């Protein structure tokens, strides 16, 4: 039994990697623009479907879909930015409804193109077992966990060291002061949407490589990303990673100890618990409470 639990912890950890990428995309855009992109999960799913097409249509390894997914998802994300930027008033409320609408468009677009069937990878290379001491996983899980860590390290470097990254942070902490320093907020907003697109593209290919996808899954992904940001607080990258791993572990444990049907309920339970006990998140962030 304890072996099973350890195995569940390990799977949860690996799963947490790509969850973190989705949540970071959501948090980054929210930080830069005070807009929650409800279509973030659909962007991830779009990338997953591109990986599916590359594999089933061209017979290539889904990893090779990353360049195409990057282009398509980043363009879509930029498009979301341009539409959101056209909102004239009540941006907080209207941007929610707007991105919800974009999510509906994407979900149904994917339904039209790829049909409602559940898809998963058939690549043997991806599904090969990877043994690490007492732990088992698929090769793809370990591969993409590594990729996620690299992406997060890259994002951390970008936000703290590069000019654009620092500009994004400057705008999110004080918009007017950033303007006075010669930063164009519109530009950093666009950049944050594109970076969120990059994260979504990788997360999507990862999702397809070790899991199953269907057009309705995008909304669930957005909710998961949101739960992680509630757990973590929007502030820090390590916080989001810990929140994501917590969610992954909670889900994996539920699947092992109870049933797979209750998997999603685990995340919700965790979410409610944090909301009741620590309304500011595990790593404390202000401004979320009314």
């Amino acid at each position: 039994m304890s072996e099973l639990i350890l195995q569940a912890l390990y799977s949860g950890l690996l799963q947490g990697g790509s969850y973190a990428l989705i949540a970071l995309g959501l948090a980054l855009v929210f930080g830069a623009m005070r807009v929650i992109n409800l279509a973030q999960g659909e962007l991830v799913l779009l990338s997953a479907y591109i990986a599916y097409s590359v594999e089933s249509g061209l017979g290539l390894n889904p990893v090779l879909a990353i360049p195409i997914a990057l282009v398509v998802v980043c363009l879509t994300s930029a498009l979301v930015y341009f539409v959101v930027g056209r909102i004239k008033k009540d941006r907080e409320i209207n941007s929610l409804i707007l991105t919800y609408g974009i999510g509906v468009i994407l979900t149904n677009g994917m339904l039209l193109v790829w049909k409602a069937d559940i898809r998963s990878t058939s690549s043997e290379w991806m599904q090969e077992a990877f043994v690490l001491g007492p732990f088992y996983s698929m090769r793809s899980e370990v591969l993409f966990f590594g990729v996620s860590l690299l992406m997060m390290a890259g994002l951390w470097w970008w936000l703290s060291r590069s000019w654009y990254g620092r500009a994004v942070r400057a705008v999110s902490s004080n918009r007017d002061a950033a303007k006075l320093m010669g930063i164009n907020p519109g530009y950093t907003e666009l950049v944050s949407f594109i970076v969120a697109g990059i994260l979504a593209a990788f997360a999507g290919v990862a999702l397809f490589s070790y899991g199953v996808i269907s057009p309705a899954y995008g909304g669930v992904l957005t909710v998961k990303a949101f739960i992680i940001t509630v757990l973590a607080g929007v502030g820090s990258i390590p916080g989001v990673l810990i929140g994501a791993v917590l969610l992954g572990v909670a889900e994996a444990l539920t699947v092992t100890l109870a049933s797979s049907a209750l998997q999603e309920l685990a995340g919700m339970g965790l979410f409610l618990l944090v909301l009741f006990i620590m309304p500011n998140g595990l790593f404390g962030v202000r401004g979320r409470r009314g």
Partner: protein
Amino acid sequence: MSMMTNMNANMNENMSKTRLLALLALCVGGPLLFAQDHYVMSLLVASMVIGGIALSWALLGNLGGMISFGHAAFFGVGAYTSAVLSMKFGVPVLVALLLGGVGALVAALAMLPVLRLRGPYFALAILAYAHIFRILATEWTSMTGGSGGLSNIPPLPTLLGLDLSSKSGAYFVILSIVLVFAVIYARLRESHYGLALRAMHESEDATRVVGVNSVVLKGMMLLLSAFMCGVVGAFNAHYISFLEPDYAFSALWVTIPIVAAIFGGYRSITGPVVGAVVVYLLDQLVFKNIIPSGHQLVLGGLLVAMIVFSPDGLLPLLRKLFKGKFTRSKHAAT
């Protein structure tokens, strides 16, 4: 001068009253022409169901200042509560309808902690809640029949010789439900609570300072909205006599009402209902024929276009256009 404005106000009131009466006559009389046509009647019933949800959604959005993506939860909980009560406990259907609303209200009680969260967080949290209720309905098989669903839910009864389970009977039931809700909504908006809520919309902090308990008020709006949506869900369950989790908690019960409310203008009372009829009929008669499997695509596009070009709804936009002409001609006369 003040008499003039008074007269103007009276005239406006009279005009809106006649317009309301005309609308009512259209709602009651129009369908009588189609009473024999089952297809038309079922479209009308379905569009009024959407109208009821849209109205409850708009109440929360307009008075409470909260955007909900979780109304499918209230709809589904209302439907299941009413269906289970009438099937397993023999509660009369019309009573069960109301209890369905109460069930949704209880579900909303569980959502009250979410009120601690501000704008976007609230919207997402309520979305998460909707998922919880769908999973519960699927997993609690002994009560809800699981994913297989419930069939043979008792139909609406015959009352005073009127068969409410027929298409036209059902239409009048849902029409009365929506009308009663609209009246409650209107009364509420005119009351002191409405005033406080409007003030809250301007500045929540300022209203708190003058002694309005904004959290309690918002909570009340959430409960009322949930109750309304639950009654509509309960009606729908008895009307179609069948329920399954994927249907009862479908995202459709969120998407179409939101599109309808935004389309008709969610800050008015008639807007969401008129919007629902227009959007639902467009969806069923036009979009569905063009793209059978992903017709919601068009609804999403409509939503995006409305928010970008006319976030207060199409009706206010048209009204503004006409009003512009009207006042200009008056100026020309004087």
